[in-house]
């Protein structure tokens, strides 16, 4: 915990004010850790803290109880200052069993706080976690402040009067733990009590049990002598406005709905369930009153094909998936390039290759988006930088797709998709315009006659009299769109399609430099690494170091000023959660000796990993 700014006394317990706290909740997949973390997050957000979260869960739905693979975690950082990452090292670890302790202990800060459920440290559970001796007793944790609490029995005791089956009562223990943490960090119970009430409206017994467990945990912490101090993190100084907490996947879904509303075109979402993109399907399927149609396809290829069909028919067509799904869609994406139809392909990236690490984050699909198709097959690529930024970039993906009649890749990732932060809700009237003009005039109509500025072809949808025409995957004759095998025409069309994508750069924002516009080191990032990079660069700038950063939201084409910005720095560092994909593109395009910093552990960068590398270059 960073600094104790002021100390005051309240009753017999002391309150210590902190700027920033990072807690990790960890337990079995069935222990409700994601729920606990989310509740703590929402309460902290409503309290006015800046927050950033990192859920970390296994691909197995319920791995054997107590086992190492079954450990599920949720990290939240909350602060009275502007924060951009869920924190490098947790200050507090809440471990519901030995396996959770074992998995998460290495990440905990030195001398950090460990709160454990001592009831779960049975011989069997210790064995499952691979502990020969009980770490609570053998000195393993001597460097930490350990608060060992018989959580299960305290919880069971608190719920005694409800006469629940033992298992049911045990399932409430996460709320007991949450209640304790609310006391410890001076948060109100009301938001969670309200949530429990609405969630278990039809199950009065579960409602009562969970609320009681939450209160009991809070009261226990208040009375026990184990806690002599509690902590307070004041409101953050966020810019004025109305906020809500939002995950990247939620923001993505809302961005797509917003694009549909602004363009007055119904949204058609075709998708095959895949981690970590399925939440977008769930979210969109709840909003059919916006005219949204969701189609759960039989496979990834079908989802892409249906999106293409809907685009041809005049809808805002969208498909969403993760890397393995993109691999399957590739041929059809080529068809969308050839037929020049506006389709957005959302790739919520995860660890690869193949099935890889389904629930872990990675940024290794950039080159797949860029080149992963047969033939010369350029598409536009955009990427959000933070969970809240997903809204803006999802919207932007459709603005570009419809303006240029092209498929657009939207590259989010598991870290952004599942992570959350406060989102300043935008004013609907301030959203950019998406002007859709279907062609209706048969006079002078040709399916591949292009707009002079954007090179886009007309969107002529079925049902329009006099515009009957045929498109397909075979090479098109310039202007007429008829099948053509002519060698000169083919080369012309290949170059034209490339030029069309290149011209998108004329219609997107230049990249902005964070810090001085010239200097020793420029850090170039994209996607979910924004928070860590910016925090690292900012802390070095505060120390007077000559380092700046830029964050690319447009990856194809690059913003027009990128080359010029790169040229003003002595060294260029490209940190990525891959083995150097943006680095490769930047080197190839600008002949800059870009240096890479690569991490492929299924986890985001720590700020410290970045500062270390930047300092090495300074």
């Amino acid at each position, binding site marked *: 915990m960073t600094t104790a700014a002021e100390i005051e006394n309240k009753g017999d317990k002391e309150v210590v004010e902190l700027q920033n706290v990072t807690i990790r909740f960890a337990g079995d997949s069935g222990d409700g850790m994601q729920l606990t973390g989310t509740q703590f997050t929402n309460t902290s957000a409503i309290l006015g803290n800046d927050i950033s979260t990192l859920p970390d869960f296994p691909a197995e739905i319920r791995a054997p109880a107590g086992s190492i693979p079954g450990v599920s975690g949720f990290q939240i950082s909350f602060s009275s200052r502007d924060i951009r990452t869920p924190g490098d090292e947790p200050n507090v670890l809440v471990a519901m069993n030995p396996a959770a302790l074992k998995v998460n202990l290495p990440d905990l800060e030195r001398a950090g706080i460990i709160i454990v459920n001592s009831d779960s440290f049975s011989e069997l559970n210790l064995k499952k976690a691979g502990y020969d001796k009980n770490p609570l007793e053998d000195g393993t944790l001597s460097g930490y402040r350990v608060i060992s609490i018989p959580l299960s029995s305290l919880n069971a005791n608190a719920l005694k009067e409800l006469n629940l089956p033992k298992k049911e009562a045990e399932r409430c223990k996460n709320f007991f733990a949450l209640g304790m943490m609310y006391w410890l960090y001076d948060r109100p119970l009301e938001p969670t009590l309200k949530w429990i009430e609405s969630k278990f409206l039809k199950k009065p017994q579960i409602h009562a049990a969970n609320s009681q467990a939450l209160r009991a945990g809070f009261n226990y912490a208040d009375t026990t002598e184990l806690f002599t101090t509690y902590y307070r993190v004041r409101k953050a100084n966020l810019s004025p406005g109305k906020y809500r907490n939002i995950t990247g996947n939620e923001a993505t879904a809302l961005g797509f709905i917003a694009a549909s509303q602004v363009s007055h075109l119904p949204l058609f979402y075709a998708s095959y369930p895949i981690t970590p993109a399925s939440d977008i399907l769930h979210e969109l399927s709840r909003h059919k009153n916006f005219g949204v149609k969701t189609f759960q396809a039989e496979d990834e290829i079908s989802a892409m094909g249906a999106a293409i069909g809907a685009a041809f028919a005049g809808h805002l067509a969208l498909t969403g998936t993760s890397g393995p799904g993109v691999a399957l869609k590739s041929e059809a994406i080529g068809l969308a390039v050839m037929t020049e139809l506006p389709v957005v392909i959302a790739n919520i990236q995860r660890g690869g290759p193949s099935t890889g690490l389904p629930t872990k984050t990675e940024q290794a699909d950039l080159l797949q988006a860029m080149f992963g198709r047969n033939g010369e097959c350029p598409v536009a690529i955009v990427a959000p930088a933070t969970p809240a930024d997903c809204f803006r970039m999802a919207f932007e993906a459709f603005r570009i797709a419809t303006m240029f009649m092209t498929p657009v890749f939207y590259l989010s990732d598991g870290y952004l998709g599942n992570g959350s932060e406060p989102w300043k809700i935008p004013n*609907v009237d301030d959203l950019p315009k998406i002007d859709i003009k279907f062609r209706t005039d048969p006079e002078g109509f040709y399916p591949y006659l292009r707009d002079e500025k954007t090179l886009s072809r007309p969107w002529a949808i079925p049902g329009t009299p006099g515009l009957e025409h045929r498109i397909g995957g075979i090479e098109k004759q310039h202007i007429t769109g008829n099948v053509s095998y002519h060698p000169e025409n083919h080369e012309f069309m290949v170059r034209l399609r490339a030029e069309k994508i290149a011209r998108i750069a004329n219609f997107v924002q230049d990249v902005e430099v964070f810090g001085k516009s010239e200097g020793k080191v420029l850090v170039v990032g994209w996607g979910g690494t924004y928070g860590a990079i910016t925090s690292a660069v900012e802390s070095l700038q505060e120390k007077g170091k000559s380092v700046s950063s830029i964050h690319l939201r447009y990856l194809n084409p690059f913003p027009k000023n990128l080359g010029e910005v790169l040229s003003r720095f002595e060294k260029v560092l490209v940190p990525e959660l891959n083995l150097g994909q943006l680095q490769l593109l930047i080197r190839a395009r600008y002949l800059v000796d870009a240096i890479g910093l690569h991490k492929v552990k299924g986890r985001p960068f720590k700020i410290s990993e970045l500062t270390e590398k930047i300092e090495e270059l300074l």
Partner: protein
Amino acid sequence: MSDNGHQSDKGSAVLELKRQDFVSDQEVRWCPGCGDYSILAQTQKTLPELGIAREKFVFVSGIGCSSRFPYYVNTYGFHGIHGRAPTIATGIKASRPDLSVWVITGDGDSLSIGGNHFMHVIRRNVDINLILFNNRIYGLTKGQYSPTSEFGKKTKSTPQGSIDYPINPLCVALANEATFVARSVDVDVKHLAVVLTQAAQHKGVSFVEVFQNCNIFNDGAFKHFTEREIREERTINLEHGKPLIFGKDKNKGIRLNGLKLEVVELGGGIAEADLLVHDIHSPEPSLAYMLARMDYPDFPVPVGVFRSVAKPTYEELLEAQVEDSITRMGPGSLEKLLHSGDTWVVD
């Protein structure tokens, strides 16, 4: 969508449409003598009679000889990729139920590379017309066996004979509870036109298998029952409400004997009343399945409509969910949506 120039459901005038209106300016490039010509001609003849404006038709195809079809019909058309036409068609029909969507496909396109989509578009009962040109060979890739080629067939890729057991497209369609299943033959143009019209008029997925002769790579694949002089002896035309009778002299029929079909001769104690009466509306598809399995020489080859039942379509159900959501929740307000959930204000 009216503010985007979207057309109303009425469409342009339909009464004066003629066959010629459905002929595109593209030169037809199938091999001379190909059975596809006949199917194209019958389709172009059928379309003006459906009472649908020309701009409301969309022809979607995959890859293969037959899949060039959309280029030759002067409607909206989409030449897709191999096996995926049903997916594109689903996207079109689900988003725009006002359109008349046709899928033109072949045996390789639908039953090999596109088998999955074929199955699912049928089971969902998307209201499209799915016309499968079955020539039992890969033509466009110049003569390899297809999933409907007979066992032991010698082709370029199977010099010792194919060891694949063939698939029966009608059975696949019926197993997936297709609401309309029919079969016709390229050379029987009158029959073909009738079947195509019935398929177009059916609401829900309409599956039509057309035996189509590839005169280059599989010439005569069907002639042992389609040649004029033997056709009546070796095929049977399924007609709703009528007993299953065939033969030049209308003297043979199909009878249900226990759980098996059998060919019987009329007379000598067997009357028309003993024969199976064809019922295309039977909700139970098992009899249709048994009929679909009849093949020469043990049985006459059945053509006509096997099944035609009513069932809500995918796009109807989808629209209904949208409507229901609007009724329950009111039309979506973006402002409200963005401000939903727990919010707080920072001054």
